């Protein structure tokens, strides 16, 4: 017996649009089996995981608040992914954004200027772009693989932040904890919904998604980046610069991730800590693909991913499950999405007869 994958001549577009749903359902089934195997009542576990986190006004606020950085990072990444620019380092660019924007907040700690917050956001975007510019430069100049470079830079960014909050930026009145001074209220993102932690960062993320949609589906440059992703030879034939495509793809991703980073520091965190993000930059890769690299899909997928984060926390408290359960659900979701995509493009054929022979 031999198992073979045979390409389908015309992959169904409907199936392509539905595959994220298939992946979600399959993930839930796995979750069901997992909870049962752990000796938990699966229905109660589902309730704790998926319903309890959002059954209050505060919970909904948390859902939207956590979705914002995911959305921001994912929309920036999607712009690059559509052009075959594989930026895997949004987490590092996010961290650099937090460092740059947070640095501005700390440098002007006594300032009461209304320009401080905008300056922090600009600095955050610049920090993310600067970090993304490194793989872009190495790729265009030396043809170094941007996947590896951007990924490795994540760890450098994380340790740079750690170095700063353990050293020069440590709060002198902070009992030696590795953390910076708390930002002044003028340096914090204004609240959006009373009794929640939701801040205007969510609106920024929504605006980024809208801008991403306009850029990707309406602008000539967005169109040209898509061409570069689909058919590099056609892009070269049409005079679409491969270097510009790589630079734009990386810088857009870096800017969005950098804004997400300062959004965290000047939002729910309110200061700089050794770790500013629970892996938003990596989870955003899943969000981008679950959302089919489409802005609307990314909007929905970021809400789903945010729910997985909240559910994981809720499961830790309510079910005494380890925090790894969040990562497990993220991984399962991505696994099923990729598997569904394989079966959209290929048909499984099991040949009983030997493959060779006369």
């Amino acid at each position: 017996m031999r198992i073979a994958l045979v390409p389908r001549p015309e992959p169904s577009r409907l199936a392509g649009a539905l595959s994220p749903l298939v992946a979600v359902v399959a993930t839930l089934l796995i979750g069901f089996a997992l909870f049962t195997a752990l000796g938990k009542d699966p229905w109660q576990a589902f309730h704790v995981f998926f319903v309890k986190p959002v059954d209050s006004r505060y919970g909904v606020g948390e859902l939207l608040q956590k979705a914002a950085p995911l959305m921001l990072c994912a929309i920036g990444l999607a712009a690059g992914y559509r052009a075959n620019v594989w930026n895997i380092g949004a987490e590092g660019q996010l961290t650099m954004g937090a460092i740059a924007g947070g640095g501005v907040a700390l440098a002007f700690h006594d300032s009461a200027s209304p320009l401080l917050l905008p300056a922090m956001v600009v600095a955050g975007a610049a920090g993310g772009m600067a970090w993304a510019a490194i793989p872009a430069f190495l790729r265009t100049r030396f043809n170094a693989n941007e996947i590896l470079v951007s990924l490795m830079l994540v760890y450098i960014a994380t340790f740079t932040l750690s170095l700063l909050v353990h050293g020069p930026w440590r709060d002198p009145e902070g009992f030696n904890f590795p953390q910076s001074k708390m930002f002044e209220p003028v340096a914090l993102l204004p609240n959006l919904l009373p009794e929640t932690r939701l801040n205007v960062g969510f609106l920024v993320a929504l605006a980024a998604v809208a801008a991403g949609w306009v850029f990707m589906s309406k602008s000539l440059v967005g169109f040209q980046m898509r061409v570069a992703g689909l058919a590099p030879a056609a892009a070269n034939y049409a005079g679409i610069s491969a270097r510009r495509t790589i630079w734009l793809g990386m810088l857009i991703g870096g800017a969005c991730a950098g804004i997400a980073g300062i959004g965290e520091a000047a939002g729910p965190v309110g200061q700089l800590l050794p770790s500013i993000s629970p892996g938003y930059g990596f989870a955003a890769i899943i969000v981008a693909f679950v959302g089919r690299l489409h802005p609307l899909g990314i909007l929905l997928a970021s809400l789903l991913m945010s729910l997985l984060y909240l559910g994981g926390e809720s499961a830790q408290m309510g079910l005494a499950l380890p925090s790894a359960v969040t990562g497990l659900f993220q991984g399962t979701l991505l696994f099923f999405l990729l598997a569904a995509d394989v079966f959209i493009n290929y048909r499984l054929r099991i040949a009983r007869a030997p493959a060779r022979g006369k």
Partner: protein
Amino acid sequence: MATMPDPPPRLSLSGVTKVYPSVVANDGIDLDVLPGEIHAVLGENGAGKSTLMKIIYGVVRPDAGTIRWNGKLVAIGNPARARRLGIGMVFQHFSLFETLTVAENIVLALDAAGEGDLPARIREVSTRYGLPLDPDRHVHTMSVGERQRVEIVRCLLQDPRLLIMDEPTSVLTPQAVEKLFETLRTLAGEGCSILYISHKLDEIRALCHRATVLRAGRVTGTCDPRHESATSLARMMIGGDLPLPEHRPAQAKGDGALVVKNLSLPADDPFGTALHQVNLSVRAGEIVGIAGVSGNGQRELLAALSGERTIDDAAAIAIDGRPAGNLDAAERRALGLGFVPEERLGRGAVPEMSLAENALLTAHRQGLARRGFVRFGAARDFALATIADYRVKAGGADAAARSLSGGNLQKFIVGRELRQRPRVLVAAQPTWGVDVGAAAQIRQALINLRDAGVAVLVISEELDELFEICDRLAVIAQGRLSEPRRAADTNAGEIGLLMSGSFIAGGAHSERHFSPAGALGLD
């Protein structure tokens, strides 16, 4: 009952039908191919030839009808099954992995992986059939003509009983076509049946024993092409008479809208061809043709002309009097250059994108984008106008480029480039794989463009085409370009001689030049 019945046909189709959502590709096709017969399947683009061959090769399943192989009813579920039966196919669009070598590509396609020394067998088969190949060469370095050799040799290695050839001579020199025909006649003499898809009527008359003519998915006739004239075959095929291109003498004027001056360019890969001191001037209102065997620098010259490869010396190439050597493809378009590349899918058009989006690919300066934003309505209108003007068979402006047949996509790409009113047009293989009716239309469009005062450069491996439309002809060999001569003052024999490099000072062998065939001692 006779005691010694005739052998059954090698392949017998009866009532084969295939319906696609937008079109009936095959409508009750009957077809018999006898052992050792060279059987032509003749038809315009979109007549259903390719679909029928894909059914026989197991790529597409028919909706109705039966297939018999040596008299036995068979279901050909996939190409592997077809190959086990003894059916080999050389596709019009090649299915080769560019990053692999010739031998690696062939190993991948062989179901019974190489008994014996495969490179040696490749050399043996390719030599025997006059298709020289270096098994260790990477496919991405090869021209279209050379890639086709790989496909043919790949089939021959499997010792087929029925060989399907989808427009095999499109990119071969006259001598190579003659050689291929000898190959095919030898094969047929050994009892192998050949299904020969083409729209080159002279070839079919010279080669084939029988012809089945398709029009709009139906069989419109079967005949012995040796007893038909090209005109009568064409009438069966298109249901009317062929337009002949009008060709008035050129009214060339000016110093040259496209000027190449002392262009030397090292090869960009070990198997490429370096360009040596290429000089050329195409004046407004004339068509200059460049003939040559594939792999002699055409690819490099085209990339240098189109701007896909930029040159440090800006003055080496001038478009409309302005130095353009260091400009990229988009900047040269802004100067008035139009370009039709030899590969359609993946280079001239993005396969997954719609025709409207593919119009945008090069024509966005024609008001299809404003202030950085795409005007999709205008792009659709542009695509629809191109479809209408060039009678492209397509499901509208939203049809994906890959859903079009090769010839129809070529018409669309030519139409898209011409519609932008270029001042200089460079076209590579403008009618490759395009049927007679459409080819005549494209040639007429090029002549009309010339008459409108455009400088046209055509690089083609089809001599007949060059003689039909060109005012002056040059030959490229080993990266050198011959002095152009007036088409009216030369002939195929002289051009053929130039193609072998006779014009190069000191003879063709004055300088060591890498030739895969030569390196293998196959010349």
